[in-house]
């Protein structure tokens, strides 16, 4: 492959940065107005929307948690009856897992990855928009059922036969099952576009072993999504929803089906799912640790390889959710071994970060506080995970508050704390303003203390016999004090969240202006203005190290010759990122929204009658035809 000439001194042809910037602004600006909002396809707009929408779902899920904690604060409480409580814990888990955790990580990825890679947009901008609309519509669809009284109440994993047609009458479980289809399609869209963006659209010179560790995390996570998400669609829609609506027999033992098969298929997705949530957070940790230690993260290759290993091993663990079902012992022992081995790959990454912190010049920003919170909480949760990998220990802890404590430690510690660190770290870049560090640290302490006060007692409650998903408990079992402490902790968490929200809003309004690189960090996203212009880089940089802004602060080699009157990006080689050809990305378009709306209508109807799938197909086809219909100019020759 021949490379275009690099001119040693001075430009090959005359170019004017001001002119180019004006042209780029015209080409790349997001459309304005009411209808314009539905047509945006820049990754910053879509990324922001994902994060904001996911955050709203986080708050809703938090309210649901608060309601549960109030009910459980005292034995034999009458704040919530069993029906309502069962709906609320189901919605809490479902909202957090499907409507918050995965979308927020996707949204941050959509925003950050093109900036970190030195390109202008993701590879499939309209697919990006489509994925967002499907996600939002799925969330609205699920919650709209609250108005018809059809809320699911069988837990976020909805085991049959309880969730089947005989024992769960009504549309609540149907709505749950179909909502998963929406969010799963959304996640798949993002996964595909991130993989292709990371592999094909990097800045020249950014070979694969130079991409930021966060981009490795998103790449591996996206592969996991590709292989895990189809399984949950099968479990929820093909197996459960069809058994409920068109009398198939996947989980009906009377006709040869098997309720345990649902568990296998669901957990084949469910275990990788938590790593899908967790891996991007590891990427945040690397980025924040690097910037605030003033040195590269130690052990780049080890970090990458252990995450790849984690991604693979995660697909081989699912039976550890089923140890109590009486499966053959030899098979189960394999899953014990695999579940423990994944602690090695995760442990290697922890050791690399500790090595970085130990030899770095640390700056304890608010974001770094959250990283240390992550270390404390996640490692504790990981260690209880090692316990749960042991079958005898799991048989005592499974389905008790011990497990509730474990997964909140690893999910909140492992994903939410790094996420909040990321909010504080990239806040200047996204909003153009500094976030208040003092308030940030204060919110950290409230969240950290509140979290431990809430969830640490649950370890003991679980081993003292408190099972999961119970709406009340008798006073004679000695669980009252632990539950009261946990509820108080939940209040402290809520306070911490409130302080964060206040901090974010007031900093956006009145925070000090941020320049391009307030943290003196190394990644390409810190080379552009805060907030970045819609086209990111007026001239894409040419990269020669893992830490471009540290080795070459002025980014002295740039790409020229790209068109400014089309949304053009440079396609580069997979491993070495040598420039190969240019391609034009689509501009703003209403079709992604229309296609998503059509498909959503069909999916919503499908819980009432199977033929609505054909409506989805028809409307979706119309939308996709419009999407791809040729529009002038036909040729893209210069």
């Amino acid at each position: 492959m021949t490379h275009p000439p690099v001119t040693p001194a001075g430009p090959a042809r005359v170019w004017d940065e001001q002119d180019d910037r004006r042209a780029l602004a015209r080409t790349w600006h997001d459309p304005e107005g009411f209808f314009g909002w539905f047509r945006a396809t820049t990754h910053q707009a879509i990324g922001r929307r994902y994060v904001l929408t996911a955050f709203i779902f986080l708050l809703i899920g938090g309210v649901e948690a608060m309601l549960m904690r109030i009910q459980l604060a005292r034995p034999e409480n009458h704040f919530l009856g069993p029906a309502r409580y069962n709906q609320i814990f189901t919605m809490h888990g479902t909202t957090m897992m499907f409507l918050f955790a995965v979308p927020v990580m996707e949204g941050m990825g959509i925003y950050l990855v093109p900036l970190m890679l030195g390109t202008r947009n993701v590879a499939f901008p309209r697919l990006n928009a489509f994925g967002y609309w499907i996600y939002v519509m799925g969330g609205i669809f699920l919650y709209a059922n609250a108005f018809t009284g059809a809320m699911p109440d069988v837990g976020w994993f909805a085991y049959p036969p309880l969730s089947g047609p005989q024992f769960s009458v009504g549309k609540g479980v149907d709505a749950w099952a179909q909502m998963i289809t929406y969010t799963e399609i959304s996640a798949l869209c993002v996964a595909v576009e991130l993989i292709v963006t990371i592999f094909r659209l990097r800045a020249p010179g950014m070979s694969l072993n130079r991409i930021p560790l966060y981009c490795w995390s998103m790449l591996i996570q996206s592969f996991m999504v590709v292989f895990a998400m189809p399984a949950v669609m099968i479990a929820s829609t093909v197996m459960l929803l069809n058994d409920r609506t068109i009398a198939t027999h996947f989980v009906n033992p009377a006709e040869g089906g098997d309720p345990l098969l649902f568990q296998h298929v669901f957990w084949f997705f469910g275990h990788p799912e938590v790593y899908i949530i967790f891996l991007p957070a590891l990427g945040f940790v690397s980025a924040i640790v690097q910037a605030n230690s003033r040195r590269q993260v130690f052990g780049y290759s080890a970090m990458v390889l252990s995450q790849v290993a984690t991604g693979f091993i995660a697909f081989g663990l699912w039976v550890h959710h089923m140890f109590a079902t009486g499966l053959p012992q030899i098979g189960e022992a394999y899953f014990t071994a695999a579940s423990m081995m994944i602690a090695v790959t995760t442990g290697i990454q922890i050791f690399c970060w500790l090595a970085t912190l130990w030899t770095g010049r640390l700056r304890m920003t608010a974001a770094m506080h959250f990283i240390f919170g992550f270390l404390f909480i996640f490692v504790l949760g990981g260690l209880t995970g090692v316990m749960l990998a042991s079958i005898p220990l799991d048989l005592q802890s499974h389905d008790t508050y011990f497990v509730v404590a474990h997964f909140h430690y690893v999910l909140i510690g492992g994903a939410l704390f790094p996420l909040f660190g990321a909010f504080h770290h990239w806040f200047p870049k996204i909003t153009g303003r500094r976030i208040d560090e003092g308030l940030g640290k204060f919110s950290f302490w409230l969240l950290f203390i509140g979290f431990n006060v809430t969830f640490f007692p649950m370890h003991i409650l679980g081993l003292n016999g408190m099972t999961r998903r119970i709406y009340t408990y008798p006073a004679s079992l000695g669980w009252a004090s632990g539950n009261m402490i946990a509820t108080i902790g939940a209040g402290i968490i809520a306070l911490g969240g409130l302080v964060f929200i206040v901090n974010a809003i007031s900093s956006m309004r009145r925070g000090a202006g941020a320049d391009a690189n307030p943290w003196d960090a190394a990644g390409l996203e810190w080379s552009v203005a805060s907030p970045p212009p819609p086209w990111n880089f007026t001239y894409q940089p040419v990269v020669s190290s893992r830490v471009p802004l540290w080795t070459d602060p002025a980014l002295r080699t740039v790409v020229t010759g790209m068109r400014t009157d089309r949304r053009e990006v440079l396609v580069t080689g997979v491993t070495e990122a040598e420039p190969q050809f240019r391609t034009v990305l689509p501009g703003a378009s209403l079709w992604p929204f229309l296609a998503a709306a059509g498909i959503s209508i069909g999916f919503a109807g499908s819980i009432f009658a199977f033929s609505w799938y054909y409506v989805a197909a028809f409307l979706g086809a119309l939308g996709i035809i419009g999407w791809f219909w040729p529009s002038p100019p036909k040729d893209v020759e210069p």
Partner: protein
Amino acid sequence: MSPTRTLDVSGLPAYEISNRAPLWWGQLFMALIEGALFCMLIAMYFYLRLSIDVWPPPGVKPPGLTLPTLALIPLVLSAGGSYAASEGAKRDDRRMMLLGMGGNLALAIVFLVLRFIEWNTFNFTWAADIHGTLVWSILFLHTFDVIADLLMTAILIGIVADNKHGPKQRLGVHVDSVLWYFLVLIWLPLYVAVYWGPRLVGSR
């Protein structure tokens, strides 16, 4: 800021119709996703089949072999049409694109007709028992994908015939072939599972 060095890419092609195109990669991953779905269905088929002694359950006629095996012929040949269309797209040869896509469409329709005839010979529905559920689920999903791809091909034929195609649409024709190869390839293990599963695995 004035950089010292520039990398002038204006000489690079403005597009490329090959397997290096991002859209081709996107289609490949879509195929992988569908593949994961179908592989899980195959695993489910055998998981359930191996836990049941009599398969298919009594009273159920196992799906006949003749029609689906015959139908393999137009299916595999239709991939040739895709290949021709894809090559035509790369060379900007309108006639070759139309012939290739047309051939693909015709052969695929023959395949579907044979399949619909075959469905009429089944004496079980998806609600009859687990065997019926599995067979119909697999066949339905695969057929749905085939029809979707056919519609896409038909529309592309329309666009190319109307001479409305530019490089983007040619890339579409080229990329469409990836999906079709996948649908042909994934059908082979599905075919083995559905039609040979009852005859090969375990005792009847």
